[in-house]
């Protein structure tokens, strides 16, 4: 074998293209005669639409078409409810264009198609809508109260879902507890803010009857299925391509956004390609968001610090619609006990309609909120019991010999019982303490204090259920001319480096260089079956599917090569792009093996000519293609995980708080991370680092500022404080590799890991820094200077 590629820091195959500016994002795809779209969006959070007058817009030079709900035929419908759940009450989904009423600021009311985007915006500005504004309630707790203004008349009490899950006997645990802590925590709403906003382009070919859609989606196969169904086309006549996509973070996995239906419709009706390139303001107003939850969490403990019970009741803001079901709240509720044994759990949530854009999963998907709740509660328990924060966690961790650890009664988002599969939690905590210098921190803190500086230690642990099913597939083929390997899978990439890690997996099986493995994903013509990229699942689910498939191709290759080389199969090894007789200098290139594996081979080139010398002289006693065999060196296979696999980590930091300016500086940040076997540590670190940066955004900066009337006050990058590079500290990332026993590669997902613990770490650190000035509690993120100022004022500082 060549040097093993799995586990190596292989540079990303995709980078040269992207770094040279040769990526092809949707707006880069040349489409002759293309038309552009703009939407008229609601300026009101709740209003009745009395009338819409599009006459002036239609007459505007350059405007080609204007659509309202009356003009869109079958699309004048409520869009699909993707994941129903019995606990949901009156599930509501958006209509592509509003009919009669609007439910949030930014909701699409009309679509203008024009020769360019400028003209389309001019046209949208000429549409006159008469609204009857209705009252709104933005506060979730007040929205649940009787008499509160309703987001939907059909949804009394603004209650979208109510769900309780129980593990063990929580009431008994609380009855025998020696100490109980109860705190209330809040995480505010943020947005994924991908570098490339959403985008879609569509072309209808009336000759072939084919609809081609370029969609910056995380779920091309699902989008194809939906479009085919809604427009009554054969799936084979709909091709959905997710080309280079500049980040998704969950925001691009909702189907459908209005434009994803209306743009293909317009392309078919107008007979010209049509595109919609969402701008940043529209991304803030009209694309999914996530995070707001208010938790009331209680821990029942013994004096030793052992937590024997947990109760958590939380409100989850689902926005005006609930197309993705209860996924976010369900993930939060099933992650609430973190890495701790806590055998008795009662967790309840109410999902609440608010007159805002819908909430669907954003990187982390409920986990940051759950982590924030339980970790802040653990800190409080440690303080009340006089225990060290590291120590109390150690006492509660699931031990290495306790896996698989089941939480009977808690069903994860995949509908399966929460079962943590493997981990070395205590070891990770010890590594974090060492890397941070926790043992000397008290002295460092005192020394800093003497210089007028306030240092604090922040700590949080998290778990992450990853790699959700149901399945993905892989197709692997060795190309007969070049000997390069082509790999397809059904999900799509938004820049994570899938093409490199999938190539590494295949490289090891087939003995080729990773750069000679060409991965094509995100094109429904390349692979027919699959789910999507979300829930930190690509490496786990597609990775194992591709691994299984590559093993099959490896076997086929060895069989064919052994036949060509006239040796036994166990005498053949694959390396350096060829099949070798072990211990000799005899080999055939993979291209020749692939060529020879096709009984029909015209000698188009030298490789084919070379292959003909291996004509199966031995096989004249049957048809050229034996019964049950297939031409070529290729295979397709699937992987369906038995359950989610649980990654985890420990984050710790030293922060400095300036009581004068209320600035928080992260002086040191340590991340101990375990996602099982790492396919490519460099890509893992990139994922973790990106997640931590997003987590710092959520911890200190990013908050969507909805006004009492439902308007979003900071719908721009000037006002929405996404951290710059200047706000992100150096982070030390250390790895543990505890293989997952659930899949052949022993891998766990990593996509969301980085962001989960950051809010809890920062709040923990700030609280620790300022405790020297009085008892102040920080249980709300993002943690702003104003919160610190208010807290200092409350203790008379």
């Amino acid at each position, binding site marked *: 074998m060549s040097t093993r590629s799995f586990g190596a820091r292989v540079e990303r195959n995709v980078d040269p293209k992207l770094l040279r500016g040769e990526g092809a994002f949707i707006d880069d795809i040349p489409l002759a005669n293309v038309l552009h779209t703009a939407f008229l969006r609601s300026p009101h959070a709740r209003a009745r639409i009395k009338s819409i007058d599009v006459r002036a817009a239609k007459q505007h030079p350059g405007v080609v078409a204007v659509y309202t709900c009356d003009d869109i035929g079958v699309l004048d419908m409520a869009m699909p409810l993707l994941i129903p759940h019995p606990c949901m009450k009156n599930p509501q989904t958006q209509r592509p264009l509003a009919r009669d009423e609007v439910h949030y600021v930014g909701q699409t009311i009309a679509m203008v198609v024009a020769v360019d985007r400028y003209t389309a*915006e001019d046209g949208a500005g000429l549409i006159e809508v008469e609204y009857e504004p209705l009252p709104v309630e933005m506060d979730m707790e007040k929205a649940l109260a009787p008499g509160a203004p309703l987001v939907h008349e059909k949804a009394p009490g603004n209650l979208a879902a109510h769900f309780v899950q129980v593990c063990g006997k929580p009431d008994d645990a609380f009855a025998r507890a020696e100490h109980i802590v109860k705190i209330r925590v809040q995480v505010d709403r943020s947005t994924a803010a991908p570098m490339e906003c959403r985008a879609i382009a569509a072309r209808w070919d009336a000759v072939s009857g084919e609809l081609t859609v370029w969609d910056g989606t995380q779920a091309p196969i699902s989008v194809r299925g939906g479009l085919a169904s809604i427009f009554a086309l054969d799936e084979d006549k709909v091709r959905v391509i997710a080309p280079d996509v500049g980040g998704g973070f969950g925001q691009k996995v909702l189907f459908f956004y209005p434009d994803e239906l209306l743009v293909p419709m317009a392309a078919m009706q107008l007979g010209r390609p049509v595109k919609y390139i969402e701008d940043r303001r529209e991304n803030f107003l009209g694309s999914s968001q996530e995070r707001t939850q208010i938790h009331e969490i209680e821990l029942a403990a013994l004096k030793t610090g052992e937590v024997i019970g947990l109760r958590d009741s939380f409100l989850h803001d689902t926005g005006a619609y609930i197309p993705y079901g209860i996924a976010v709240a369900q993930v939060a509720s099933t992650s609430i006990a973190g890495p701790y044994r806590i055998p008795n759990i009662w967790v309840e949530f109410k999902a609440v309609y608010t007159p805002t854009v819908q909430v669907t999963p954003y990187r982390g998907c409920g986990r940051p909120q759950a982590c924030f709740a339980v970790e802040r509660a653990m800190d409080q328990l440690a303080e009340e019991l006089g225990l060290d924060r590291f120590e109390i966690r150690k006492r509660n961790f699931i031990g290495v010999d306790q896996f698989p650890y089941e939480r009977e009664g808690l069903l994860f988002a995949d509908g399966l019982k929460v079962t943590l599969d493997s981990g070395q939690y205590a070891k990770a905590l010890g590594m974090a303490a060492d890397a941070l210098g926790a043992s000397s921190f008290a002295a460092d803190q005192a020394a800093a204090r003497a210089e007028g500086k306030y240092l604090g230690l922040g700590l949080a642990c998290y778990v992450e259920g990853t790699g959700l099913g149901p399945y993905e597939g892989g197709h692997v083929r060795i190309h007969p001319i070049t000997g390069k390997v082509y790999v397809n899978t059904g999900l799509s990439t938004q820049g994570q480096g899938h093409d490199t890690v999938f190539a590494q997996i295949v490289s090891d099986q087939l003995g080729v260089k990773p750069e000679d493995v060409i991965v094509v994903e995100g094109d429904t013509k390349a692979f027919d079956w699959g789910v999507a990229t979300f829930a930190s699942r690509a490496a786990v689910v597609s990775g194992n599917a591709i691994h299984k498939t590559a093993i099959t191709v490896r076997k086929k290759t060895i069989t064919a090569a052994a036949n060509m080389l006239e040796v036994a199969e166990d005498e053949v090894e694959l390396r350096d792009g060829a099949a070798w007789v072990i211990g000799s200098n005899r080999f055939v290139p993979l291209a020749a093996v692939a060529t020879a594996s096709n009984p029909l081979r015209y000698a188009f080139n030298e490789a084919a000519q070379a292959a003909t010398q291996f004509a199966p002289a031995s096989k004249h006693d049957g048809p050229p293609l034996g019964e049950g065999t297939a031409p070529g060196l290729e295979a397709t296979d699937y992987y369906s995980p038995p359950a989610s696999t649980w990654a985890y980590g420990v984050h710790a930091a030293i922060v400095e708080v300036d009581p004068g300016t*209320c600035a928080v500086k992260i002086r040191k940040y340590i991340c101990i991370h375990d996602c099982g076997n790492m396919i490519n540590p460099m890509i893992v670190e990139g994922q973790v680092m990106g997640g931590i940066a997003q987590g710092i955004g959520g911890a200190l900066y990013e908050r969507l500022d909805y006004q009492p009337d439902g308007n979003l006050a*900071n719908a721009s990058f000037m006002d929405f*404080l996404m951290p710059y590079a*200047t706000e992100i500290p150096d982070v030390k990332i250390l790895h543990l590799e505890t293989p997952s026993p659930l899949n052949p590669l022993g891998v766990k997902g990593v996509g969301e890991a980085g962001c989960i613990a950051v809010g809890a770490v920062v709040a923990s650190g700030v609280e620790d820094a300022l405790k020297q000035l009085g008892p102040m509690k920080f249980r709300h993120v993002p943690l*702003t*200077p*104003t919160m610190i100022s*208010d807290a200092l004022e409350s203790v008379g500082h």
Partner: protein
Amino acid sequence: MKPSLFGYRAPKTLDEAITMLASDADAAVLAGGQSLLPAMNFRLANPSLLIDIQHVEGLRGISVEKDRIVVRAMVRHREFELDPAVRAANPLIHEVMQHVAHVPIRNRGTVVGSLCHADPSAEMPLLLTLLGGSVIAQGPQGRREIGAEEFFTSFLSTARRQDEIIVEARFPTPRAGAGAAFDEVTRRHGDYALAAVGCVLTLDAQDKAATIQLAASGIADKPLRLKGAEALLKGSALATGDLDAAVKASLPLVTQSDEANASVSFRRRALGALIRRMVVKAAERARSGSPQ
């Protein structure tokens, strides 16, 4: 986020530019475009005509004169920041410029454009106010000089008349032996300040403040000289008690209302901390004989 239809002219002379500006009440002057163009993309500003002054003769360059630095209308922030003669004459300028947005924005944005935009949290208006500088406005009626405190009238508003172009800004150079300091509180590096304070002072032989200029921005609808604090500190030893009094006198000047990123009480806290720190730092620099 595409602008509505607008006209565009690129005059070569100041007279041409002023004539164009005077002939269209909805025309706007385009210099670096770092505030105007985003506002147009949001359709918050919809000028009928953009008069691009980058080709106008005589609007480029910085002159370091005996007791002032003259910055003409097309001088980019980055030029002001990096000019060695500017840095030698008044090192505070280089220090302040580090806080102005980010390098790509400083490469395009102009000093005078920022003054004309008059964001009450921006650094350039504060600097002009702190140093007691002025601008030169030229219009159909000729040229006039407008002092900083008269120029900034309110939030995004100045005393410039619609038909005038600000052709230069004049930043007085602090007297020999002065120490100066500037800092600001922002949520992120490069953002507009939630509170910013600049201080220039000289010390007498008894180590007391012989002269002191103190200004703040981010706290009101325009940058402010902290005159009460200046009066209290002048002639004082700048002891803790003196600083306490100066801070106390300045806090009522915070009139920005509560907003998402900063409550009034937080702004007051930050203003107080900055006043103390900047006065102490400026005094240390004056004492050490190195202005920075």
